[in-house]
């Protein structure tokens, strides 16, 4: 075995191998939430591409069969069809794996949604490396870079069921297209299930500390909070920011935090190029903030992810609490490099 493999990780309760799939799934939430919203909003229609059981849009279909469209395995067509629907005043929600939506359909999203400014919502689920051993074809570790570069696009990465629900509910009337980057549905809860506080384009400060700010979104928020707890033992006080909106990015909020603590560790389930870390770097440059140490923790710049159960991969790529805490400590050590990239 190559020495870059870390020690095998025992299967645990959160691992793919474990039978936890009946737990509260964010994908299931999105099907139910959309069905609830559609009860009062006749504009809402849902499209998917032969994945209604995987993304639970079947829950929407059961309640609104006349407003559900299965386009089969033809994702590019699905995106353009949604665009055509939107010109008639509908609010289409199109759902499939993030790898196929954000990567395969990038040009349709740019040309048919973002350029004409049409209010189509993309539900890009199983994002990042959450499809584990299904491999690179099913991983989406580059699409934030694509979505973030599109004028007029809103990009939202909720971290759990409650925030997915709140994000969907709070954006129904938002202009233009929205890319929702959501996970596999096995994410630990971060927010109170009853919480409805979701403000598009604002960093959510989940914890405040003076030494280091960990900026996370999606699957990395929960381990970032755990890492902050671990670092207390080392005398390190961390802020944890949920950067759920990558575009429009809360540049002012980030610069304020960066100025106050001087050390940012960005943790994302994405290649370290193009995604959340790049959004932070852009904000610092635009804001003229000097002297900040920016650490990037994500998928290595020059690698495609190994295959394996997702939790094992998160451990391997240091996207778990221990990994994040270790990188946080290293970032505060003046002799260390700031990023693995």
């Amino acid at each position: 075995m190559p020495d870059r493999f870390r020690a095998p990780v025992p299967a645990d309760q959160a691992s793919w191998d474990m039978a936890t799939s009946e737990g509260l799934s964010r994908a299931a939430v999105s099907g139910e939430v959309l069905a609830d919203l559609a009860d009062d909003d006749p504009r809402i229609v849902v499209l998917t591409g032969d994945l209604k059981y995987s993304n639970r849009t079947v829950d929407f279909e059961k309640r609104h069969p006349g407003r559900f469209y299965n386009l089969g395995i033809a994702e590019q067509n699905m995106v353009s069809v949604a665009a055509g629907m939107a010109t008639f005043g509908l609010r289409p929600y199109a759902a499939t794996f993030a790898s196929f939506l954000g990567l395969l359909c990038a040009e349709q999203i740019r040309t048919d949604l973002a350029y004409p400014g049409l209010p189509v919502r993309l539900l890009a689920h199983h994002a990042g490396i959450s499809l584990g051993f299904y491999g690179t074809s099913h991983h989406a570790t580059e699409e934030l870079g694509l979505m973030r570069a599109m004028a007029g696009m809103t990009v939202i990465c909720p971290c759990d069921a409650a925030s997915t629900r709140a994000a969907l509910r709070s954006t129904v009337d938002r202009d233009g297209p929205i890319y929702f980057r959501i996970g596999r549905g096995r994410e630990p809860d971060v927010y109170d299930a009853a919480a409805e506080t979701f403000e598009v384009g604002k960093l959510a400060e989940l914890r405040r500390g003076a030494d280091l700010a960990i900026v996370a979104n999606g699957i990395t928020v929960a381990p970032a909070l755990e890492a902050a707890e671990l670092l207390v033992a080392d005398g390190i006080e961390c802020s944890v920011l949920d950067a759920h909106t990558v575009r429009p990015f809360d540049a002012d909020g980030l610069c304020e935090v960066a100025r106050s603590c001087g050390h940012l560790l960005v943790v994302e389930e994405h290649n370290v190029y193009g995604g959340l870390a790049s959004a932070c770097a852009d904000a610092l440059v635009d804001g003229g903030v000097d002297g900040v140490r920016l650490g990037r923790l994500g998928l290595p710049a020059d690698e495609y992810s190994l295959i394996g159960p997702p939790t094992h991969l998160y451990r391997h790529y240091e996207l778990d609490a221990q990994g994040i805490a270790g990188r946080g400590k290293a970032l505060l050590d003046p002799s260390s490099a700031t990023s693995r990239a």
Partner: protein
Amino acid sequence: MSQAAPAPAVVAEVRRRAALVRRETVRLIGIAKSGHYTSVFSCAEIFAALYSGIMRIDDDPQSPERDRLIISKGHAAVGLYPLLAERGYFPTDWLDEYTRLGSPLGDHPDMRRVPGVDFSSGSIGHGLSIGVGMALAARSEGFAETRPWVLLGDQELNEGQVWEAATAAAHFQLGNLCAIVDRNQMGLDGMTEEVMAVEPIDAKFASFGWDVRHVDGHDPVALLEVLGSVERVQRGRPTCVIAATVKGKGIGYMELSRTWHLGYLAPADAEVALEELAADA
């Protein structure tokens, strides 16, 4: 044909508009100094027929019940602009600034900037999908008389997304959708059957579950008859009209000439071209 022959006055209008399209295309590309003359010339009569009573549109380019036209071969937009201006959708002096810095009118059409353009296009292969979405929405939202028309290029049929859309249109029984293939025989690199074969177009669409019709795409009477006979039904087979045309039709040396896919006529040459078009009209 079960319907009466088109009225001579309407046929004359189609001829007049087709001549306007060709003439203005020569003038406008003269401003840009580069453009797709031949791709417009092949569909000049199709545009003219659609805007001479085939499409149901009114003075409001945003009327919800209106028919939509998606120019999936977006590079033919320069031929559409004069017809939209003629309908009063925007001032005719916009044409004089075609493609100049900040102009709403570019080589490919922009729905946000040009009143009367129903969808932005230019990336070949998307248009039929857009039409499918519009047809589904027209049906679900109760616009029983609204029809999306999609103008496809022939070489465009190489794009896989066209066939994804063709599959979906038949699956959803979009009897309110009509595709028109401008079968002008050429792509950019040469004859379609040499570049990448598209035939048999009729058998392909038929096997996908479409109702297929053929028409001489330069004959105003035939176009009015065939396009006018496409029924407006909510559920049924979508319709594909294959219009036999000649790329570059109207200027002898441009017809079926590979080198004129993109080109520019210097003023003296444009004058000669306009004379040829005038003699033809």
